[in-house]
């Protein structure tokens, strides 16, 4: 019997791309139509962008050099922004962890609690953080606490979903082995599932912090504390040198948190 087969199929190369089905072709066409509709509806204009360049150049020329007159008070505000981000994220993570255990499918066995937890996460995520800030300003008044609470809710929604998915994806073997020895479901979750999902938990937590730092900057615009208010006031007063200082401070803070987050993530993933 020959060891190779020559069927003749090798003579013609197969086409590089599969011919789309009628349904796929319709899908592509509808997708393209939606894109054109969205671009036209959102007022996209390259002309306006080019015509606005002199104004941008004027803004840049009037912003430099950045003003250092209020460096002390601005530093205190950016520190407050960072404090809001840290405490808000931590509060959100503490809220997210127990809820995510219920939200993860097939983990606790309670469908009702699972549905409630997933609905809460959906609510936390779908309402923008700026809207949460407005709500908390009504509840606790102006100031950083309202912003901290808004960040907490946003972080809980963001982290909770990823926590639940990480636990769903974790290897169930160790938990099953423990259950076979009479270990309670809750103990098996804390002993086997959560440690397996821990790298993902930490990565998600660090992303939450980075996201919170960026959010905390804009929350000041609605009076929920942080440096955003300083930026708004400086812009409204055409005090562009001070605005430039605020923008640079935000840039340094966000960059520092992202770099620190990347470093910690790398260390954790490498074990």
């Amino acid at each position, binding site marked *: 019997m020959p060891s190779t087969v020559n069927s003749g199929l090798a003579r013609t190369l197969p086409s590089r791309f599969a011919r789309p089905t009628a349904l796929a072709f319709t899908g592509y066409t509808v997708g393209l139509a939606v894109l054109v509709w969205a671009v036209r509806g959102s007022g996209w204009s390259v002309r306006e962008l080019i015509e606005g360049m002199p104004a941008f150049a004027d803004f840049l020329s009037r912003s430099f050099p950045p003003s250092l007159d209020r460096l002390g008070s601005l530093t205190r505000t950016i520190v407050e922004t960072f404090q809001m981000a840290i405490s808000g994220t931590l509060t959100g993570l503490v809220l997210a962890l127990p809820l995510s255990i219920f939200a993860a499918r097939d983990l606790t066995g309670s469908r009702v609690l699972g549905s409630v937890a997933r609905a809460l996460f959906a609510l936390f995520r779908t309402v923008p953080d700026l809207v949460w800030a407005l709500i908390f300003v009504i509840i606790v008044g102006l100031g950083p606490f309202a912003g901290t609470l808004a960040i907490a809710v946003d972080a809980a929604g963001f982290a909770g979903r990823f926590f639940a998915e990480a636990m769903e994806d974790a290897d169930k*073997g*160790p938990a*099953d*082995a423990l259950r*076979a*020895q*009479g*270990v309670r479901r809750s103990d098996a979750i804390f002993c086997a599932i959560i440690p397996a999902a821990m790298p993902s938990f930490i990565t998600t937590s660090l992303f939450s912090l980075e996201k919170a730092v960026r959010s905390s900057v804009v929350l000041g615009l609605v009076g929920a504390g942080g440096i955003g208010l300083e930026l708004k006031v400086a812009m409204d007063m055409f005090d562009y040198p001070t605005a430039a200082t605020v923008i640079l401070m935000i840039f340094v803070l966000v960059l520092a948190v992202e770099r620190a987050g990347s470093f910690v993530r790398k260390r954790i993933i490498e074990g």
Partner: protein
Amino acid sequence: MNLALAYPLPAPAPAPEQGIEIAVRELEVSYRRRGTVFSQVSFEIRRGDRVSLVGSNGAGKSTLLKALLGFVAPSAGSINVLGQQLSVSDTRALRELRASIGFVAQKHNLVPRLSVLSNVVHGTLGGRPGPFRWFHGIAPDEVRRRALAALDRVGLAHLALQRADSLSGGQSQRVAIARALVSEPRLILADEPVASLDPAAGEDVMQVFEEVVRAEGATLIFTTHSLDHATRYADRVLGLCHGTLRIDSASHALAAGEIRALYG
């Protein structure tokens, strides 16, 4: 109306005699899609017996172990384990029963990011649940001592603080054995405990298994595809084939051809 007459209940299975750890009577397990896995399976296992369970893939060896642990509901028949009639609906009683059983799976199933000692401490959670046994760092000294002693029995006490994912396959399976033994179970079930190991590591693990189980005086049931292991490390061989129990014999009285016939 006399309901007892209209709907006669099945007669309760007679209690097994003294010294019988497992009594399986007329057992049948069926799955909706797969159909009947096995039926009319009956056997008794006495305290201290070492029993190998053999049969080809799909013969129902793992299903039988799962049934003994109450993870699979019988379609017919009864199972009595450690003097307790199994009922899959009584989850609390099942959990208490499983706490008296050591289980070793084909894959070691250790928690990779935790220390070896923490993994063994987890073996005590069945008897005493709660957060103080989630990690060895917060476990009581008495539990840590027992876990370390269990590790010592499988020759790995010196690796107690290493992460579980740094161990070789053979070492990991030994830790899984230590985890199964730490609660001093009367009965140990092992589902192809050396299937994922190379022959040398598999031999090493089986020897450790045999020594430790013999020293503890526990009853052992293990599934295997190795005819050598089935006869050398067990006093008795049970063989499943085409949904029935074809072999139930003392291992010394069994010819290799009889076991091979199960795979034909």
